């Protein structure tokens, strides 16, 4: 482990069709942390992690991973895209998808070998999908598809992970299984940045939170930044609905 921060962002601005989505983002992420990225829809959460991996053109500023540009350290970075971003009718098996996580370490012309398959199997075991290894990916539930992506990320054996809403559309059991795996990765000293949209669970799950709404509203230990004022600033007017619900629940008087 180098002393370099796994992720350092300086004055990052990203725009779609000249409309800025993120501006002036500055961030230094400490290693070995499980970090939640939260913010309203359109806050640029997905944009931020895509920009970190060079998937989007950057207007200004820079991103360094382990002190280097992304291309130099690509094999140390793992990625879990949104489940909806791929075609689940694609003619591949669960095993094939998990093995894709190994491609970054295989050179040209090299096929995944026995060691890669064994590793893929152990990753599937961790997300409780080993019995499904030879299934066509279309024949999986949403939660299972999400766990396939997680197994693939495990197979990447990265030091830094970007995950785009890994909890979206999964059942409670899957959510518990996923968070257990994320914590295990964190305990191994890896750094995880997870886009998340559920505020109550964000508080339990993450060591640190990045509150994002086009720029960084706050970044720090969850206990410090999970405050009504900062959340209000992140979500703007939209949080009033949430806080009304919370107050109603607190008064043991569910709305309606």
């Amino acid at each position: 482990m180098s002393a370099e921060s796994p992720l350092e962002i300086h004055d990052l601005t990203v725009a779609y069709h000249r409309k800025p989505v993120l501006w002036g983002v500055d961030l230094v992420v400490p290693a070995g942390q499980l970090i939640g990225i939260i913010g309203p829809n359109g806050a640029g959460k997905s944009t931020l992690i895509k920009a970190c991996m060079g998937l989007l053109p950057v207007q200004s500023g820079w991103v360094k991973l382990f002190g280097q540009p992304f291309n130099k350290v690509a094999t140390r970075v793992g990625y879990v895209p949104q489940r909806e971003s791929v075609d689940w009718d694609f003619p591949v098996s669960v095993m094939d998808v998990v093995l894709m996580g190994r491609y970054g370490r295989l050179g040209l012309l090299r096929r995944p070998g026995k060691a890669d398959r064994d590793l893929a199997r152990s990753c599937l075991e961790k997300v409780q999908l080993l019995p499904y290894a030879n299934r066509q990916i279309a024949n999986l539930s949403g939660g299972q598809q999400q766990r396939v992506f997680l197994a693939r990320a495990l197979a990447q054996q990265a030091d830094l992970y970007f995950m785009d809403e890994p909890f979206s559309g999964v059942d409670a059991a899957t959510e518990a299984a996923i968070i257990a795996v994320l914590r295990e990765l964190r305990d191994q000293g890896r750094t995880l940045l997870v886009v998340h949209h559920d505020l109550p669970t964000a508080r339990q799950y993450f060591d640190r939170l990045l509150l994002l709404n086009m720029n960084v509203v706050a970044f720090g230990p969850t206990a410090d930044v999970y405050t009504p004022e900062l959340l209000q600033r992140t979500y703007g007017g939209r949080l009033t609905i949430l806080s009304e619900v919370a107050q109603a629940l607190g008064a043991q008087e569910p709305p309606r």
Partner: protein
Amino acid sequence: MTSLIPPYDAHAVWVAPWTEQLSLYGWIAAMGFAVAAACGLVGNYLMLRRMALMGDAVSHSVLPGLVVAFLVSGSRSTGPMFVGALAAGAAATLIIETIHTRTRVKQDAAIGIAFSTLFALGVILTVAFAGQIDLDAECVLYGEISFVPLEPMVTLGGWTLGPEPFVRMAAVAVGVGVMILVWYKELLVSSFDPGLARSLGINPALLHYGLMATLSIVVVSAFEAVGAILVIAMLILPGSTASMLTTRLPKVHLLSLLHAALSSVLGVSLGIWLNCSMAAAMVVAGAVLFGLAWLASPSQGLVARWWHGRRRESVEQPAPGVGV
């Protein structure tokens, strides 16, 4: 009815082309297979990437490329024609990319704009320089696969490889096969999940343009044999049929090759029986195979669905609408 459907002579349709007339129909079937194999393999990736209509775009844009190449070089020899058609294919790809990334027009509409405009340009050029160009509209549309056996034979070290267009097409097909073997991983991951591919250090844009260049080469080589329209069927039918029968990419490729072989052989027989364009008959044969696969597919087939539906009814337990 005899006037509509020619008399059916089993010997002439099924036996003669592969025995006494093999030197004629054998090469036509071989050419059909080479075209459909090369097209089918490239087409599999077009379909996986939801870009099936890019074949349309490239095949139609070939026409102005051919005309311009002819006007510039003043000859109809293969070299300049090939370069012209390739350049036109590249231009079509670039125009589509530019329109769909720089404006709000989506890719399908951009394809519609690019290929029809380029084809129209080709038509205007053909008419404007009609005195100088000997381009047969029928050839542009349907190709001239029946003329393949009449082309000069290519020999290498005493071995007769076959008529020149077939040798060229076969080389292209083998080239496509080798490319898929070499870049199998990269093509797979960038087609399935471009974001992951990029994060793995693979450049999806480079692969995209490589695939488009390959598509142009394949379409241009196939153009003379099957024309601008039928080549689209050759790109899409083998893979569509294969995906009815399997859910693994390597098997999709193998079944596409089988489809290519069957449709070219059956197409020759059909073409002899109906006395029609061989290329069109091959496409119809391929479409019939697609229909059969749709009927008989174990997972998505009409027969299998009907059978499961009937069994479900007999158990008298209408299953709740939960996905598999």
